[in-house]
């Protein structure tokens, strides 16, 4: 029984459990295991900052050292969540500054972070080591200066894809001379130029620096200075990859690259001048991750580069690579696991490059380890999708974006139901799926029947009726996140599957046909869900109950009703009076 081992022994055993799922399972065994486990949990992951409150977390886990948290729903990336919706981290920082003085790590995604928060972090946590702000916003370079100046043991400062108000590059100079602990620095999202000499000195005095992602403003001619001071780099993000075409610049660059024998990942490559690409050929054979998604270079140059990277596992690239380039990729890179192809001209009416479904088919044929795909293109066929599905049954993530909404199979003009049906039927391990093109309720029937491991589904301009939504909600056992825009899904399926929503992290529906009345009903029926109506047209009760809401965001929560809602968000509580106060 529980008393056969002393606490310390159990605690020691539990220390080998790093996965949250395992720790959650352990804490359900009995009360004493729950108690022991909660005192020794060091890492907490909160997938939705509004699912729980700081107090609840702190009460249950008093000795946390690392917090990872996500805020806004994914569709915020596409400007579908209005400014001011929420996801403020400050209340969390305030609470943790008192409860967790030994906190070492904070990783946030899609949250609003202010300079005040950054300053509080810098002041409160003496042993602070890791700050990762992914797609965050609300802070300036002044906040970064506080972190640089005060966090003596800072190991990671990663601002990936955040929107930072760039007041000046001076923040970097705030790292004290005795700061030597940096392992990872990602400042690629910043616009301003930092003092290059300060950067150089910082890089030189941090012997453990593994990841350095520069911003566009760092000139290519100066890159060798940094590489020479950090030959141990494993991941490099260049600045602008352009300079006057001079042989000395080229040879310096080539020489500097050749010194970096550990490089595995490359990114950056803004404003590429192709003439300088061969300078990095010496490192290509070791490269496993290559992000060329900002490199506006044409297919021949891309092919020359990529075919040198025989050990490539991950490639992000623009559609300039074209079908021919993808065919070459399939021939050279047999270890490829992840491919993302982004559109170079997403708003153009006509295709500007020769990239079709064929490119993806080639890669699915040639790359036996391919498991993760994000692909933007302008045409697709059921035949291609069926081929891809049969070629790669171990696919885990499949995100296809056909640029024209509701585009049919371009060969047969039929819906793409069969194609996506083949994907879910063959790819039994599929965890994430994004679909586009002309799709009827049929595809949702296939998904509900087959996609048993699917955790995240994104749908746009698809389906005919509530039956589509019903298939998904009733069939997809593992579904955690569902995001839907512009689909004719309404009240029936939602209300019939209300209980399902408590088993999921969240549901997003915008520009669908869910009525205000149904939202109210859902809020009343399901007290453990937050049902948020997001509507910029003014109060929903100024319109008939049957009027569809603009946006609906439903998520399970154990927290109290949030107190930071802006004027365009209405919470559907059981108590209607509260909802409109």
């Amino acid at each position, binding site marked *: 029984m529980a008393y056969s081992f002393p606490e310390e022994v159990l605690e020691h055993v539990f220390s080998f459990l790093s996965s949250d799922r395992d720790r959650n399972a352990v804490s359900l065994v009995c009360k004493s295991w729950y108690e022991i486990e909660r005192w020794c949990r060091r890492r907490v992951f909160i997938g939705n900052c509004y699912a729980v409150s700081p107090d609840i977390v702190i009460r249950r886990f008093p000795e946390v050292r690392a917090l990872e948290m996500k805020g806004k729903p994914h569709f915020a990336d596409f400007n579908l969540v209005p400014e001011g919706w929420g996801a403020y981290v400050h209340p969390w920082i305030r609470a943790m500054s008192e409860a967790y003085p030994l906190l070492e790590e904070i990783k946030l995604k899609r949250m609003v972070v202010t300079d005040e928060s950054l300053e509080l972090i810098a002041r409160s946590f003496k042993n602070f080591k890791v700050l990762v702000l992914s797609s965050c916003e609300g802070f300036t370079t002044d906040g970064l200066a506080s972190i640089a100046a005060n966090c003596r043991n800072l190991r990671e400062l990663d601002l990936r894809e955040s929107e930072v108000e760039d007041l000046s590059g001076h923040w970097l100079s705030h790292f004290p001379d005795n700061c030597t602990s940096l392992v990872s620095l990602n400042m690629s999202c910043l616009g301003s130029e930092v003092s290059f000499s300060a950067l150089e000195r910082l890089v030189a005095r941090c012997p453990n620096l593994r990841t350095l992602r520069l911003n566009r403003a760092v000139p290519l001619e100066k890159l060798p200075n940094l590489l020479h001071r950090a030959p141990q780099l494993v991941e490099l993000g260049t600045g602008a990859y352009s300079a006057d075409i001079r042989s000395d610049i080229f040879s310096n660059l080539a020489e500097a690259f050749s010194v970096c024998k550990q490089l595995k990942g490359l990114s950056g490559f803004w404003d590429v001048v192709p003439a300088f690409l061969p300078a990095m050929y010496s490192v290509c054979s070791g490269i496993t991750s290559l992000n060329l998604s900002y490199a506006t270079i044409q297919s021949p140059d891309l092919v020359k580069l990529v075919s040198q990277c025989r050990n490539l596992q991950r490639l992000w690239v623009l559609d300039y690579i074209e079908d021919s380039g993808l065919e070459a990729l399939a021939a050279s890179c047999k270890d490829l696991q992840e491919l993302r192809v982004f559109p170079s001209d997403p*708003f153009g009416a006509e295709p500007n490059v020769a990239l079709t479904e064929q490119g993806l088919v080639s890669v699915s044929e040639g790359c036996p380890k391919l498991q993760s795909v994000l692909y*933007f293109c302008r045409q697709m066929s059921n035949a291609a999708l069926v081929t891809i599905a049969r070629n790669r049954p171990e696919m885990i993530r499949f995100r296809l974006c056909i640029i024209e909404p509701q585009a049919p199979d371009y060969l047969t003009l039929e819906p793409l139901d069969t194609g996506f049906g083949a994907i879910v039927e063959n790819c039994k391990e599929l965890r994430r799926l994004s679909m586009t093109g002309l799709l009827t309720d049929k595809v949702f029937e296939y998904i509900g029947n087959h996609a048993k491991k699917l955790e995240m589904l994104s749908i746009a301009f698809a389906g005919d009726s509530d039956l589509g939504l019903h298939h998904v909600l009733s069939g997809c056992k593992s579904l955690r996140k569902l995001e839907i825009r512009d689909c004719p899904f309404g009240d029936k399926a939602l209300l019939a599957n209300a209980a399902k929503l408590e088993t999921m992290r969240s549901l997003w529906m915008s520009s669908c046909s869910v009525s205000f009345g149904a939202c109210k009903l859902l809020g009343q029926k399901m007290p453990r869900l937050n049902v948020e109506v997001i509507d910029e047209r003014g109060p929903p009760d100024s319109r008939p109950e049957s009027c*569809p809401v*603009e946006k609906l965001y439903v998520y399970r929560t154990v927290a109290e009703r949030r107190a930071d809602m802006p*004027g*365009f968000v209405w919470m559907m509580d059981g108590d209607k009076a509260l909802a409109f106060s």
Partner: protein
Amino acid sequence: MDKSSTGLGLETELRLGLPGVGEVEKNDKKRAFCDISGGAAAAGAGNNKNQVVGWPPVCAYRRKNSFNGVKMYVKVSMDGAPFLRKIDLSSHKGYSDLLMALEQLFGCYGIDAKNDEKGWNAEEALEDADKCEYVPIYEDKDTDWMLLGDVPWEMFVESCKRLRIMKRSDAKGAKDLLKALAAKEDYSSSLSN
């Protein structure tokens, strides 16, 4: 997007579309740009991708850092101002953001009636409509002068070559243009009925 009439005299529905389309007439002039700052999704009857917000699903960070390079400085002229200014379109997130920046740039308040942190409010914007002294227009790739706000933000940034802040009282031409456009829309929609 729901276009059904609420049965009230006042159409408070916000969308990205030409003013005057299917709307109560008296709102034509007032809605000229006060509803630009709203930005509701406009999925609409015609699923033309050019009208759709947030489509294709390229994330904001990527959009900001790709397509047309780093900065997108365009000239801004304001009627009555002695010199022009320049503004970087790529550094703004949307129409409200841009209009606020324009107001600050020229030290005048009256381009965008809404300045409310709590979010757009239809009633307030309509009430304040008379305070809007200026009409923001832009010249697009085809050298046509366009009213701000009709197309999704990303499309606007791509096609805008220069901005002009026209005085409402001087914008007779614009008013007539708007009237003519509205009349044309009414005519074509009456044809399809």
